[in-house]
């Protein structure tokens, strides 16, 4: 973007960036206590970059919140720390372990850690009194997300009411709230998976190394390749072996599957995605597989 544009045309990626920066500034101006939800995944890293650009040379004027499942990939936590330190933002870690210990969320033995994130997250938002929480959701990810607003209103129970969403026109966002309510903000709503990868490539920013091809001991469960770890031992009949893999999404390591891949650069990842036959979530996230309406249900409860 440093060259002069004789034709005054912005590429689609520059247009997306401009729109996202507009949203970040709008929220910082209109909400009393925003927070950026940071998972360490590629989408939330793009969010950090956009926030950095929106307020430069000032620091990002809100803290960063991470929900720690206790089963996070160490590579992801390392990347998170690098980003937080470089930008000098305050990091708040809301721990699922702690929420379980305090009885804020209850483990029935059947529910995944990903699902426990909902209660942990809502509790953190309530405790700190956040009025706006930025999330890295994209509308191309899943059918239920396709109808979500950029400003997505949550009631005092943190719930989303898909049938009663506020109309969202032009780039005029309505941030009105009642006491106890909050807004989820999705600045990268209009980005696709490929936009994210191209942006990471062109900005040259750090993402967790597990997105790139590496050797890992994995085993197969329900058609997914899962990481062998102390949290996730093999069951009888399962056998771990070293394979060349990479992750397409990051989350709870007991649930997040990887794919066999030799893609070790951004360009190779883009080529791989172009010919891929499975969508991001369906392929590798165990928690979305239960029903066609799984995402919609979790969103209503207050999932990211």
């Amino acid at each position: 973007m440093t060259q002069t544009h004789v034709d005054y045309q912005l590429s689609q990626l520059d247009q997306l960036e401009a729109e996202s920066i507009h949203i970040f500034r709008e929220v910082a101006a209109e909400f009393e206590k925003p927070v950026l939800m940071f998972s360490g995944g590629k989408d939330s890293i793009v969010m950090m970059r956009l926030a950095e650009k929106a307020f430069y040379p000032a620091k990002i004027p809100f803290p960063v919140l991470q929900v720690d499942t206790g089963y996070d990939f160490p590579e992801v936590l390392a990347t998170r720390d690098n980003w937080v330190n470089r930008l000098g933002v305050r990091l708040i870690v809301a721990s699922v372990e702690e929420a379980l210990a305090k009885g804020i969320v209850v483990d029935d033995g059947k529910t995944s850690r990903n699902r426990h994130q909902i209660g942990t997250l809502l509790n953190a938002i309530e405790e700190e009194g956040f009025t706006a929480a930025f999330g890295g959701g994209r509308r191309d990810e899943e059918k239920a997300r396709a109808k979500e607003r950029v400003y997505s209103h949550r009631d005092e129970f943190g719930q989303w009411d898909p049938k009663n969403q506020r109309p969202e026109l032009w780039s005029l966002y309505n941030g009105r709230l009642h006491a106890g309510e909050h807004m989820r903000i999705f600045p990268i709503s209009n980005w696709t998976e490929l936009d994210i990868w191209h942006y990471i490539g062109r900005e040259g920013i750090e993402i967790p190394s597990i997105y790139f091809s590496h050797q890992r001991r994995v085993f197969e469960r329900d058609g997914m390749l899962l990481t062998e770890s102390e949290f996730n031992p093999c069951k009888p009949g399962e056998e771990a072996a070293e394979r060349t893999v990479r992750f397409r999404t990051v989350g709870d390591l007991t649930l997040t599957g990887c794919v066999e891949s030799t893609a070790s650069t951004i360009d190779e990842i883009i080529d791989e995605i172009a010919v891929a036959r499975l969508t991001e979530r369906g392929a590798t996230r165990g928690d979305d597989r239960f029903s066609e309406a799984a995402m919609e249900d979790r969103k209503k409860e207050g999932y990211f």
Partner: protein
Amino acid sequence: MGADNALETAQNVGRNMDLLRFATAGSVDDGKSTLIGRLLLDSKSIFEDQLEAVEATSQSKGYDYTDLALLTDGLRSEREQGITIDVAYRYFATPTRKFIIADTPGHVQYTRNMVTGASTADLGLVLVDARQGLTEQSRRHAVILSLLRVPHLVLAVNKMDLVDFDEDTFKKIHAEFTSFATKLNIPDLEVIPISALQGDNVVNRSENMPWYQGPSLMHHLENVHVASDRDLVDARFPVQYVIRPKSDDFHDYRGYGGQLASGVLKPGDEVVVLPSGMTSTIAGIDLFDQEIDEAFPPMSVTIRLADDVDVSRGDMIARIKNAPTPSQDIDAMVCWMTTEPLRKGQKLAIKHTTRTGRALVKDIQYRLDVNSLHRDQETGELGLNEIGRVQLRTTVPLLCDPYAKNRTTGSFILIDEATGVTVGAGMINSGS
């Protein structure tokens, strides 16, 4: 589109690919979801697992063919009822262009969704069933797209396969619509005969309609010229956020963050800050850590001024000899979006660019019948999904232009102060 094409598209996403936002209107019966499903499928934006799920559902419901509409109907209640109840956004790309579809339902009660989808669209796509011809609904869609100043319109005459690809049927609809469109503001109109179900003229030219010489729908979407729709003359920069680092490295830095609505601004330009009327010179324009030579829409930049003038959120930077007049008496077309009607004397919150204030409804001049374009002056109120001409008095001056000239500085939303809900969308005719 083959695998090579998909690869080329994927690689071009980060290069000079441009963007077209379009809104679709039509009901399930017109085959809108089927058409969108086909655009997504043929541009390889749908993946195998999604297609398999839809094939399985279609089979279990006993359909003869794969119902592509199932790809797009997102919320469970919609799948159950078989209708689309809200605006949904879809994405696909071809090697030269990325597309964002605002997919809006066509039923009469969902005018507000169509207005929402059209508000950001460069192009509107209206579907009609070739067997039915123009309906009240298709006329209403065209009127709304015209009111929202969507610069390009495509009428897709669908289900041509069910009229034996008959040229006369198409010609009749074409002529009828063209005649109707003369009453509207539609700068660019294309009429295309298609079969969304069978793919005729969707991506490839149809062999079943040799009499049709025009482009396929996809070809038109890829090539329609949208760059010249932008206004590069009238500089309008609504100030969003004041950036003051207060750090050792940037001790005296004071920049104004915002997104350029129109026009081009350069360092050295003499500017006026509204509503105060103070003048200054642009000292520099920053895009992150780079100083740039010029800013143009829709760039989000940070502007620094040479003088220490008082500038805050809600102000606007414009050129001294080309600036909007601050106006508190606003004449506008309003689309009403809630069940409790809009009445004279009502007070609402108003958001215009980055400015928020309150508005008093001084008069409701008429209600526009979007089917007949008749102006009903007796009404005195606007109900849900109705559009009318309204006079407002605002507590703060709006730095506005007519909507016909500028879709950013000419638009506003109305908010119910008690519920916090967005209840109206406004398009300014004039301000004083």
